[in-house]
């Protein structure tokens, strides 16, 4: 028999390291005489998209094309230390570092432009710098860079963002451990085949508070990926260790979801602004994945009236749960 169920999973996640662990990022911007920009950060984009977001931040602040920025990351001889890629911290900590850097550089260029244009209400936009009240007073960003170089003003700026928090009381664990938190709720609809123990996830609705979606496409992509990784955890993935030996040594035995295993995934991005975040943004990497397993497991509980205590909810564990032998292997 096929039984359907619905379940929810909510979570919160402290962004950054917290607990007084060093949580810093530095960022460098260098402007060439022709106005092209080299940005440097110690952060690694291992696929989640931070490079793109950093370029967007710089472009936003300086009014230039984001795709023309050359971003060099994570080369210990060349880039400053920005801390590791973890704890959903990159957009928040690294992004803030780039906002600071961009604004410092802009301040320098703005001074030169004010002098050249004889206006103080300057806007940096689409590769131009112009007066808001008198737009005809303008100079291209490229030209401005050359003029600034000719005057010998600094062309390299490095800034530092420190997200290190206080520690908590060691006896009670109480205190302001984190700078901010991320929030998410997901819903899962599942169908359980009581005769085989197979759980099929039909649908996931993911609601994530991202603070501000700096790149909504990226946010969605991260969430979709997190959901599917969470499904794998909930249903099938398990590294088996016996007596200190690992029994799952191939991707044929350790099975992650394929394109045929994914449900419908609906993503909703909420923007509850975080004042300290870059443009209000928080992290999304981990909040994408965490609510999925509890939502799926709660949906299985809803379908069966029985609860899995030993993860994952694979064929055997679910079948034995239904048939009253949960402790089975």
């Amino acid at each position, binding site marked *: 028999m096929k039984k359907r169920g619905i379940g929810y999973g909510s979570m919160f996640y402290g962004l950054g390291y917290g607990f007084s662990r060093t949580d810093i990022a530095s960022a460098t911007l260098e402007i060439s005489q022709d106005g092209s920009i080299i940005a440097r950060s110690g952060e690694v984009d291992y696929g*989640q998209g931070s490079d793109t977001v950093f370029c967007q931040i710089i472009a936003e602040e300086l009014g230039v094309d984001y795709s023309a920025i050359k971003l060099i990351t994570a080369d210990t001889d060349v880039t400053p230390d920005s801390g590791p890629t973890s704890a959903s911290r990159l957009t928040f900590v690294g992004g803030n570092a780039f906002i600071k850097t961009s604004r410092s550089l802009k301040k320098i260029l703005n001074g030169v432009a004010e002098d050249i244009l004889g206006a103080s209400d300057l806007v940096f936009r689409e590769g131009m710098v112009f007066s808001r009240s008198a737009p005809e007073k303008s100079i291209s960003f490229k030209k401005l860079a050359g003029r600034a170089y000719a005057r010998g003003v600094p062309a390299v700026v490095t800034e530092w963002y420190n997200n290190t928090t206080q520690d908590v009381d060691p006896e009670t664990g109480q205190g302001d451990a984190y700078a901010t938190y991320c929030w998410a709720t997901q819903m899962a609809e599942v169908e359980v085949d009581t005769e085989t123990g197979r759980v099929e996830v039909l649908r996931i609705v993911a609601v994530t508070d991202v603070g501000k979606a700096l790149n909504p496409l990226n946010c969605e992509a991260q969430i979709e990926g997190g959901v599917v990784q969470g499904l794998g955890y909930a249903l099938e993935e398990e590294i088996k260790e016996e007596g200190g030996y690992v029994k799952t040594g191939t991707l*044929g035995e350790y099975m992650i979801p394929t394109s045929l295993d994914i449900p419908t995934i609906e993503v909703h991005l909420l923007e509850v602004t975080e004042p300290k975040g870059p443009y209000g943004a928080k992290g999304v990497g981990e909040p994408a994945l965490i609510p999925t397993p509890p939502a799926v497991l709660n949906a299985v509980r809803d379908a069966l009236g029985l609860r899995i205590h030993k993860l994952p909810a694979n064929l055997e564990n679910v079948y034995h749960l239904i048939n009253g032998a949960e402790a089975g292997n």
Partner: protein
Amino acid sequence: MAKDQDKTILKMTVNGEPVEVAVNPAWTLLRVIREELGLTGTKEGCGIGDCGACTVLLEGKTVNSCLVLALQAEGKEVRTVEGLGTEENLDPLQESFIEYGAVQCGFCTPGMLISARALLDKNPHPTTEEIKVAISGNLCRCTGYVKIIQAIEIVAQEG
């Protein structure tokens, strides 16, 4: 050390160009593509056919190049991601993958593109289910497949 006298000359066509390369009979097509021809766009994710990262076209059909002996490609035509498009002239799938966010870490991307290309060459207007089946031998851990499927769908609709 693999001695040169152990090697055999393999002749095949790679991305339209005839190539001749001395290979050890124990080498896989994947090893020859990456290490001997320097076409590192094709990736090794497992080496035993479980992940699809090394997918190439062999005589127009997708294969895991880690599961083909190099010498089995004798006289045959191989196409890798490097033969799909150029920066100036991207394959529509490459364009679509960029535009619709189908690329994250990128390690599965070359194999994924090859599988998608093989599908569209055979069936220009596949259903969503057919797209899912076509890439079901290509594991991806970053995207959850959603944007990849969407990117292929868009090319299929326009194609």
